[in-house]
């Protein structure tokens, strides 16, 4: 292995985050670089391109204060690595894995590439373990399974942070209570200080802080590092999951800040912008984060992701939610109108989806009638919303009898099923689902078999 090399006075040009330097030593593409200037802490960077005499270094922190003269470059022979070890949990780090909590650095058991390596699809195991989150709209209608990546599509002012913290505290396999080794990795990407603190307090109050590792890139820190925080966090999570065999839940918030940083960096490289100025490779770049979730055959641990993003302008067609939705295995969409009406959690169920749900629910997993119930709730609520539009035009009295029943169902569904004051067990959530279906004409419940209707809804009440 080559030793680290120190170059002095090699920098020839500085443009935004890019440092152009003479290549006075052997170095490979993507090698890690430390830029040293004056007495400040070294700034991390990587070799982005190189030819025979020069190289381009992308500085992953602010370049402010750097001068052509006096700036030294330390070259590492390897790409950016993160030394991970058993004592990651209970700690708080900055976006590049340096302790923020005053504790000692983590004793590294292995040094892993922060970019990770793609998981071989032939080695993946199909995620099947149902996770109970305590939230009816998720557990019954958009079930989360271990190894899944399920983002929260939210918007400014909605309670996504509270929801994520609740899921992190409660998420468990059914029938087990904490005897398995679980862990939470929290990556705050450009988040305000109080958001990070709230999450820390929430985990502390539930006694789970000892199982939590936090990587913080706060809102006032350089945008470049927003790109690093999730990579360091996921590197730690992969180690915890696939080497230590833990069930890791990774919360990435806020992915919108990440994408903004990506756009900023792309622009500073002079790249041709794609949709809304975001780089054309944003899909691949996001995939390199999201695809790090999963289960591996023959390894006990799992890595589940719960990324949070705030949809700019509440627009689900914006490139950030759009590309995310194409990569992740579904999405949970939060809604401003429900929030205003005091419904918590304000989950808009129709555009929400969990793609891996069918592998983890039903006979042998949850309840045999769970899939049919979920489908019936979706179909009935879709109809209720259509009728609501009609009612707003013609008035409720102008509607046929059966439509009025669906209108009432819509209200019940939102108030008694979506809204919940406390966590529910899956059984309670399923029961709430069957309860709100009561009162609909049985003939219209086409997603349920007669047997299912008989088992859960009983005889039809005739008015």
């Amino acid at each position, binding site marked *: 292995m080559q030793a680290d090399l120190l170059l002095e006075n090699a920098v020839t040009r500085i443009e935004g985050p890019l440092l152009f330097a003479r290549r006075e030593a052997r*170095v490979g593409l993507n090698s890690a670089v430390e830029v040293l200037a004056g007495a400040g802490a070294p700034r991390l960077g990587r070799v982005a*391109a190189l030819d025979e005499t020069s190289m381009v270094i992308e500085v992953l922190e602010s370049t402010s204060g750097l001068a052509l003269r006096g700036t030294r470059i330390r070259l590492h022979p390897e790409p950016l690595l993160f030394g991970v070890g058993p004592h990651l949990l209970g700690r708080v780090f900055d976006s590049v894995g340096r302790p923020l909590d005053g504790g000692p650095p983590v004793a590294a058991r292995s040094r892993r590439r922060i970019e990770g390596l793609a998981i071989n*699809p*032939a080695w993946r195991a199909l995620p099947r373990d149902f996770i109970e989150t305590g939230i009816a709209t998720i557990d019954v209608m958009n079930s989360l399974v271990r190894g899944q990546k399920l983002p929260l599509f939210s918007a400014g002012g909605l309670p996504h942070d509270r929801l994520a913290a609740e899921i992190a505290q409660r998420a468990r396999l059914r029938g087990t209570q904490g005897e398995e080794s679980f862990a939470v990795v929290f990556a705050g990407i450009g988040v305000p200080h109080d958001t990070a603190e709230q999450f820390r307090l929430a985990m502390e109050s539930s006694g789970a802080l000892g199982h939590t590792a936090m990587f913080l890139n706060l809102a006032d820190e350089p945008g470049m590092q927003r790109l690093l925080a999730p990579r360091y966090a996921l590197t730690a999570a992969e180690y915890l999951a696939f080497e230590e065999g833990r069930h890791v839940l990774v919360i990435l918030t806020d992915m919108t800040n990440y994408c903004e940083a990506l756009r900023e960096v792309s622009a500073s490289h002079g790249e041709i912008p794609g949709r809304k100025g975001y780089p054309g490779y944003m899909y691949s770049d996001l995939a390199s984060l999201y695809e790090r979730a999963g289960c591996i055959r023959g390894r006990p641990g799992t890595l589940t992701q719960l990324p949070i993003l705030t949809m700019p302008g509440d627009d689900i067609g914006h490139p950030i939610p759009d590309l995310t939705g194409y990569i992740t295995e579904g999405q949970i969409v939060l809604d401003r109108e429900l929030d205003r009406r005091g419904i918590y959690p304000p989950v808009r169920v129709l555009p929400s989806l969990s793609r891996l749900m069918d592998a983890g629910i039903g006979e042998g997993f949850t309840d045999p009638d769970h899939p049919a119930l979920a489908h019936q709730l979706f179909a009935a609520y879709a109809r209720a919303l259509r009728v609501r539009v009609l009612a707003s035009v013609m008035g409720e009295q102008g509607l046929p009898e059966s439509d009025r029943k669906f209108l009432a169902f819509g209200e019940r569904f939102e108030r008694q099923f979506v809204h919940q004051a406390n966590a529910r067990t899956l059984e309670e959530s399923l029961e709430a689902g069957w309860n709100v279906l009561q009162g609909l004409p049985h003939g219209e419940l086409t997603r349920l078999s007669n047997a299912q209707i008989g088992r859960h809804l009983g005889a039809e009440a005739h008015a």
Partner: protein
Amino acid sequence: MSEARITWVGGPVLKACATGPFSIFEALAVGERRLLGEVIQLRGDELVAQVYEDTTGLEPGVTVVGLERPLSVTLGPNLLGGIFDGLLRPLSRATDYQIQPGAAERSVARHRLEFAVRNGDVLSAGAVFARTVAPRPQSLLVPPWASGRVEALVEPGEHRDDETLLVLVDDAGHRHELTMQHDWPVRRSRPVRERLGVNAPMITGQRILDTLFPVARGGRAALPGGFGTGKTVLQEALAKWCDADVIVYVGCGERGNEMAEVLDEFPQLEDPRSGRPLAERTVIIANTSNMPVAAREASIYTAITVAEYFRDQGLNVALMADSTSRWAEALREVSGRLGELPGEAGYPAYLSSRLAEFYERAARVTSLAGAEGSVTIIGAISPPSGDFSEPVTLHTKRYVRCFWALDRQRAQARFYPAIHPLQSYGSDVQELADWWKRSGNPDWLVQRQRVLELLEAQAHLERMARIVGRDALPAQQQVRLLCADLVNEGFLRQSSFSKVDRFCSPARQVAMLSVLLHFADRADAAVAAGVPPARLAALPMLRQLQRLGEEFSEDDLLRLRQLPRQIDYEFDQLQTVASHAG
């Protein structure tokens, strides 16, 4: 072999100074790890190449070796049942759960085979010279460039896949040594004797496709839809149940867990026609979204080349490409790095011609050796924010015969498959009517037309109903709405997760459609005779008709065909009551 030295490297693109001749699109081995690359530009001594793997650690001075052939894949009996990366390197043999860049050691497989030829026989290009025995018989082909008289022939029995099995000597005296496998450049279509016209549909087992928008064998279909509209579930359903002999499934820039699902499920499912595990007729090419982007661009060509190879064995092949948008984006990304002028939405100007080249490789053909085979392409499209006016969808539309548009509203109500019947089309309907006639349903064309008219009327009437209320529509129109709902619920909706209904044979499709249209006839007549529409909506059998697919399995066809009598009975009752009341 020519060599070159790297002078510049950035991302997946490198420039190198050549000391020998290179040709455009020549495959390259880069550095000690022999990363696979491809020449994309030549300027004097300088060549520009894209590398299909992670370039971390490359530096100027590293050697690049020309492989003296275009980017090629090895075709042979090791493909069926396997999972491969975008360059057709086996993924299942890897020993690490993470993908390590660089060429892996080639491992050798053995197959037991029987020869179809004898010493002295004269073989043409593409002829079958032997067949493997187990687990599934496969033909071994003379490569398209070779022909001649068989000279040396090894004994039948078990052989290594890289061993010379026979030697052909052609008229010019050239010797061709044949093994079980041969290489073929992925960007060139394999030659055929003749392209044939439409003769039969590829039966998918999905009612909305087979009955309303059928795709022909050797046809091309596009499946566009925003995220969450069920593209992948539908592609997988087609891969499981369509009546092709071989399925090539390419996950191009898609999710790793989806590949895991296919790998998990297919070995357990049984091919309804052969009774063998579905995995045995399937080749999976997985280039997930986090695998190198240049290989994503190649994976589509790799897949179609594999499909053509099986077609040349006289088989009907279906290629499922999920998703062609990711492929187009890979084109865009590589084009951007080369500094090419962007066209629409940043895509290179040659996007349209690349799409055309790809879809043109679908066909029903007579192979060089005279066998009849076909490749049918079903390409998923992932348009940004579900908007079908974006370049990939628009250009694809020009080259496909079937357009199966997925609709977000249907998907959100969990109405699957969420294909919108009014935005979709199939262009080979007239030609395929003959097939339905031969298969015992001469009325298919008429029935199909009636369903489409009913659905068209529904869209129109619902707009009216939104203004005046459903009850205010004339009785005749209320009944049309009722029947349209019934066709949607009872016929078009079909769950891929239902054991009973995930596959629907043409016979059951015909029976179901006849039942529902019979109901529509009787309903029209009843309303004309003065029965109020509300009475029809309250008919007890309606619920059974709405759940027709679930309630009548493939084994219940007889019972299903009896249903019109029950419909008659209930209507007769209704009209008797009505006339007494009147």
